[in-house]
């Protein structure tokens, strides 16, 4: 059965469920209650939650829910809008809220900082859920300057962590995704997000979790329940089955604390960009990069940024083309050249002593000279805003410049990330580009994309940019996204992550046994299905 079919059935189910009788924008778009939950149950659950956290920290009507309902992802039928929000300030309140949810069978949608932009923000995978907003739980619980570790709550942003380290003169770096100031380590790691320093694979540098289970039990993973608390952030695996993984991209528990490793500030930091002129160069860039990444000569998560993606950050579509049809490579190349950009701009950075950096740079220059890449330094790129942006990210610096993408097509702010994964081989690139362009063009969208090279894998990161203020375009974006998922999935290129609008569709591509195992774990740990039904396709 295809994920699309499942989704339509979900919609049909929604059609017969009771709609909420509160007038207002968010609710009026067709938000419905969760299966088996009555209007009275929801009202009683919200009332009980008010008694736990106080009136100010529960939202239950369209007006007060407005900031939780904002999303960049396509939602033409309004099925992803939450029906409430509750914001606890400590673990005890989380436990009390879970008890209420179990009592009324009212599902909750936990979010950490709620700014997973382009993946759904605080909107929910299935209708009728109350957002469990953990943003107020923003304590930095410990920073160990010898082990270079931290333990934080879900509401801690990268900005807060950076501020704490700076205010205490602690020479440690953080590693941020592209919207660092308003997101945090817990949420990003749990969604298996990445950053761009050598600590860019966030789940690799995660160490220890505290998880509130659906029944209120508190689990500490790894060394967390032993009598030596500092070992919690020092050793990932503990003893017995490694559990942390099942709390990422899942709905098996509410993570309320998480440990992470921090990188010592290096004596020398040297960002570089390698520019290539032709679209088809991406295959040889990937093949040149793979051995450098595997050997650790290029130590950070590498972004190969397509020119269109780069331009969309700081420019509007109308500056590049006047045609409504998909912007052409020629138009992009011309505009990019005027702004000192290649068709591919590969950002890498070196970290270490002067001698280490110099030797790595020598090897890298050799590898890229062989494939006609211009290796450019900070001095050469001067105040180029794109170089500045990536030089900021590759040292864990804070930036929100990528939010500019949401304005590429009109003012409507539509963005959905499509991120299929392949092995890091040049032979995997061109077929993906051709397929993406073809599907995007069919729906009237541009190919604004990048590739990222991790340890062995190649992420294709496609920003589906659309005007969300135009309902017809939002519908087209939704259709287009689904076709991207299925079209790529048929060729074996499946997403590493997706938005609330496509979780079922993507989960279906990972096999029936995989889904059945997840369903069995879900049933065992959350028999009333109160935690985020629909997350990652796990109902």
């Amino acid at each position, binding site marked *: 059965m295809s994920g699309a079919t499942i989704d339509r059935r979900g919609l049909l189910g929604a059609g017969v469920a009771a709609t909420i009788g509160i007038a207002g924008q968010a609710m009026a778009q067709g938000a419905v209650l969760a299966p088996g939950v009555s209007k009275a149950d929801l009202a009683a659950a919200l009332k009980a939650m008010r008694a736990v956290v106080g009136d*100010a*920290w529960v939202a239950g009507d369209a007006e007060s829910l*407005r*900031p*939780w*309902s*904002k999303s960049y992802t396509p939602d033409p039928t309004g099925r992803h809008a939450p029906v409430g*929000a509750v*914001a606890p*300030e400590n673990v005890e309140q989380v436990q009390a809220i879970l008890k209420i949810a179990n009592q009324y069978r009212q599902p909750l949608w936990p979010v950490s*900082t*709620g*700014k997973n*932009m382009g993946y759904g*923000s*605080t909107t929910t995978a299935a209708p009728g859920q109350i957002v469990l*907003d953990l*943003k*107020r*739980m*923003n*304590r*930095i*619980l*410990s*920073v160990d300057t010898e082990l270079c570790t931290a333990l934080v709550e879900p*509401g801690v942003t990268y*900005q*807060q962590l950076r*501020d*704490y380290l*700076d*205010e205490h003169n602690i020479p440690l770096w953080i590693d941020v995704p592209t919207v660092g*100031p*308003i997101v945090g380590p817990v949420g990003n790691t749990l969604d298996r997000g990445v950053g761009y320093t050598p600590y860019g694979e966030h789940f690799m540098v995660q160490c220890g979790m505290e998880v509130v289970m659906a029944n209120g039990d508190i689990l500490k993973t790894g060394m967390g329940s032993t009598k030596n608390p500092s070992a919690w952030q020092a050793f990932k695996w503990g003893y017995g089955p490694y559990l942390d993984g099942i709390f990422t991209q899942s709905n098996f528990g509410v993570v309320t604390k998480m440990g992470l490793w921090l990188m010592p500030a290096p004596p020398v930091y040297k960002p570089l960009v390698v520019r290539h002129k032709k679209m088809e160069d991406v295959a040889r860039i990937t093949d040149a990069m793979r051995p450098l990444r595997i050997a650790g000569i290029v130590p950070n998560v590498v972004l190969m940024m397509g020119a269109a993606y780069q331009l969309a*950050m*700081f420019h509007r579509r109308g500056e590049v083309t006047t045609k409504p049809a998909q912007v052409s490579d020629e138009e992009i190349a011309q505009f990019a050249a005027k702004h000192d950009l290649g068709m591919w701009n590969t950002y890498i950075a070196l970290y270490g002593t002067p001698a280490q950096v110099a030797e790595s740079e020598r090897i890298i220059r050799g590898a890229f000279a062989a494939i006609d890449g211009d290796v450019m330094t900070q001095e050469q790129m001067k105040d180029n*805003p794109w170089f500045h942006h990536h030089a900021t990210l590759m040292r864990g610096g*804070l*930036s*929100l*410049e990528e*939010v*500019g993408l*949401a*304005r590429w097509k009109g*003012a*409507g*702010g539509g963005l959905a990330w499509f991120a299929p994964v392949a092995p890091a081989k040049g032979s995997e690139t061109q077929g993906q580009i051709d397929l993406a362009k073809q599907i995007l063009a069919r729906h009237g969208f541009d190919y604004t994309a990048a590739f990222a090279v991790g340890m062995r894998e190649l992420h294709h990161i496609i920003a589906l940019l659309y005007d969300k*203020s135009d309902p017809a375009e939002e519908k087209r974006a939704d259709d287009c996204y689904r076709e991207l998922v299925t079209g790529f999935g048929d060729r074996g290129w499946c997403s590493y992550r997706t938005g609330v609008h496509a979780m079922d569709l993507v989960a279906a591509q990972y096999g029936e046994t995989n889904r059945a195992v997840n369903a069995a774990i879900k049933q065992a740990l959350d028999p009333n299905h109160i935690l985020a039904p629909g997350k990652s396709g796990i109902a």
Partner: protein
Amino acid sequence: MRRWALLPLMLLAAPASAQTGQALGQTLAQRPPAKTYASICAYCHGHNVGPIILGRKLPVEYIQAMVRAGRNGMPAMRPTEISPAELDALAVWISKAPKDIKEHGQ
């Protein structure tokens, strides 16, 4: 407390290094408006992405509504991110703030 009294001037001079004074194990205290602006708004407004909003005498209620609704490409900020008290102070501060010549907008 003496340290806090110096904050506003310091923040205007160097927003990026503004202090939060967060201690280990404590939740983030109410931030002065200049710090809220520097920690969230200023990354887009006046920095290549969003329109300049300082020095325009924008109405306080308008700013508050924009922050919570997040018009167009702008994200909506929940009361859990910018508290009601922080938003009250922030909206007044933005409304009254002079233009910052270091900002460059779109």
